[in-house]
């Protein structure tokens, strides 16, 4: 920190190696179609997969090393790395699933007129870069840019299915609300800048004191919370979610519901935990109210929903509400103990990451199955609960796996969802958030209803007269790989969580 003279030594390239690799991958996947013509269809996703793999390995190599780069603006500590693993795996899964329909020789009847353009891969990789930087950033302006890097490709991906009016509408809605929320985020950042004079989390941490009357700072952090809240779909910044998830191609919805939420929460935990934690006494009320609202509204709106994608969208809103508990726990824990670099993450962060990991696989698995089942003559956006009626009789495996994901989302034992909730709620309770936990549990009870509605339809109702599902869901190995990965992860986390918890136990706040 002492010398601001720029020299290459101040950049730790190992720390940013994953994003360098992925950025290179973006260029390659962008240019390759011009060189490889028709073969690009298979080469392009292959490159994307290799790039993701390389990024994964380069992240794994710096595990436990706590590398920071750019004067600590970018910190590749274990929390970042764990989040990066989630992002990369999600992207990996999505690329494989897309490829299954994208490749001419693997193509099944595609209802969503999907992904005819090879640009989908560079765009997805850009999202991953944005997500990784979001989770690593310890400077608000970098966080802001990372959020934009993540969002802008997503606006496009949401509208990727150009033959669908709904997809384009989703894109427009996402974009307009997203840009509006970005405005608030940027304004909040400027107010914080005005109050503190710097945007590094450490500088903010040092500058803010709960006793000063620095209302500009408070206004700033409230507006920043709005911006973050939009990204992870907290109520009342959630309204875009159902429309966008419904209109976007199902896999992109899954991608958004998993990766964006994970990235958003990692960034929130960082900012609230490492930046403004001394002000916990000032922001916790607002966060607690938002948490309660988010879970309740999400679940209530899902209750009578019949369109599958919208139902999952509302459910993802509710999950954001539960996750917000982790922010409160971290705030409370760290405002009492004080943050020290290198300290173990503590329960809350561990719970949050465990919950995220469990949630991510369940939700992306669910969307993958919806996408898989989408019939050729119907838009996935319109798939209703009635359409999966009697699914068990026709495709027992699909039904079983879908049911498993729904159980995980609902929080039934032996799935990841149960333990996620268990850890999170138990931790919240031990930190004294009794009322909120009771509220969350009531919500969890309520939510079982709509997840079960789907399971009832699949298992206990006879199939509709004329099948409105994809009659022969493509029996291709790629999709099996995707869904089975999610299944195994869901069960693995639910039955043998020790392995992941062990990993998380060693996760610490970056130095």
């Amino acid at each position: 920190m002492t010398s601001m003279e720029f020299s290459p030594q101040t950049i730790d390239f190992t720390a940013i190696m994953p994003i360098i690799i992925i950025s290179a991958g973006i260029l390659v996947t962008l240019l390759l179609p011009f060189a490889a013509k028709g073969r690009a269809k298979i080469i392009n996703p292959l490159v994307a997969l290799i790039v993701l793999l390389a990024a994964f390995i380069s992240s794994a190599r710096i595990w436990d090393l706590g590398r920071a780069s750019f004067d600590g603006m970018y910190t590749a500590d274990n929390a970042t790395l764990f989040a990066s693993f989630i992002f990369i795996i999600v992207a990996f899964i999505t690329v494989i699933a897309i490829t299954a329909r994208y490749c001419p020789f693997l193509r099944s009847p595609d209802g969503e007129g999907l992904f005819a353009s090879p640009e989908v891969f560079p765009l997805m990789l850009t999202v991953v870069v944005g997500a990784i930087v979001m989770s690593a950033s310890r400077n608000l302006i970098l966080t802001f840019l990372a959020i934009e890097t993540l969002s802008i490709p997503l606006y496009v991906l949401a509208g990727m299915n150009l033959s669908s009016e709904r997809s384009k509408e989703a894109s427009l809605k996402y974009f307009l609300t997203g840009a509006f929320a970005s405005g608030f985020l940027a304004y909040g950042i400027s107010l914080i800048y005005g109050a503190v004079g710097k945007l590094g989390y450490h500088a903010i941490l040092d500058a803010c004191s709960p006793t000063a009357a620095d209302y500009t700072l408070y206004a700033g952090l409230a507006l920043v919370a709005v911006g973050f809240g939009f990204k992870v779909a907290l109520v009342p910044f959630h309204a875009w979610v159902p429309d966008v998830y419904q209109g976007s191609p199902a896999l992109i919805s899954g991608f958004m519901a998993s990766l964006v939420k994970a990235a958003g929460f990692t960034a929130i935990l960082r900012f609230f935990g490492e930046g403004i934690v001394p002000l916990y006494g000032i922001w916790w009320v607002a966060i607690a109210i938002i948490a309660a609202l988010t879970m309740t509204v999400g679940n209530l709106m899902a209750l009578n929903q019949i369109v599958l994608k919208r139902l999952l969208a509302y459910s993802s809103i509710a999950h954001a509400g539960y996750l917000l508990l982790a922010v409160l726990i971290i705030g409370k824990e760290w405002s009492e103990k004080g943050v020290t670099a290198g300290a173990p993450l503590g329960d809350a962060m561990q719970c949050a990451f465990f919950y995220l990991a469990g949630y991510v696989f369940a939700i992306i698995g669910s969307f993958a199955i919806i996408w898989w089942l989408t019939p050729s003559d119907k838009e996935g956006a319109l798939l209703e609960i009635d359409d999966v009626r009697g699914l068990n009789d026709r495709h027992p495996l699909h039904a079983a796996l879908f049911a498993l994901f729904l159980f995980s989302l609902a929080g039934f034992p032996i799935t990841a969802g149960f333990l996620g909730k268990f850890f999170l709620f138990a931790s919240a309770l031990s930190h004294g958030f009794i009322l909120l936990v009771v509220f969350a549990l009531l919500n969890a009870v309520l939510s079982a209803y709509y997840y079960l509605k789907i399971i009832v339809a699949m298992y206990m109702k006879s199939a509709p007269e004329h099948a409105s599902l994809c009659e022969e869901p493509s029996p291709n190995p790629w999709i099996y790989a995707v869904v089975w990965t999610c299944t195994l992860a869901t069960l693995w986390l639910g039955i043998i969580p020790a392995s992941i918890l062990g990993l998380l136990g060693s996760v610490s706040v970056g130095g």
Partner: protein
Amino acid sequence: MTDVPMFYYTTLAALLFSIGAVGVIVKRNPILIFMSIELMLNAVNLSFITYSRYLHFLEGQVYAFLLITVAAAEVAVGLAIIVALFRSKREVDVDAASLMKE
């Protein structure tokens, strides 16, 4: 140096930001909505530069510069989305894009 109080500038920024926010809600033409968002971002820039000037940190200008870049990127994508959606329609009405609700 200047003797205009910082408060004037920051209030101007807040005012422009609020006007932009109103515009987003009351306009039905997506292009105008988008223009209102640009106005909001301009207000943010003004805010950054004001603080940069009065707190004497040059960084505010760097932030403003980065923000302009972001705005430019948003414009590129945003206008493309608007064109893609309304190309086939006679009316450019954002309220018409409501196939999905409830």
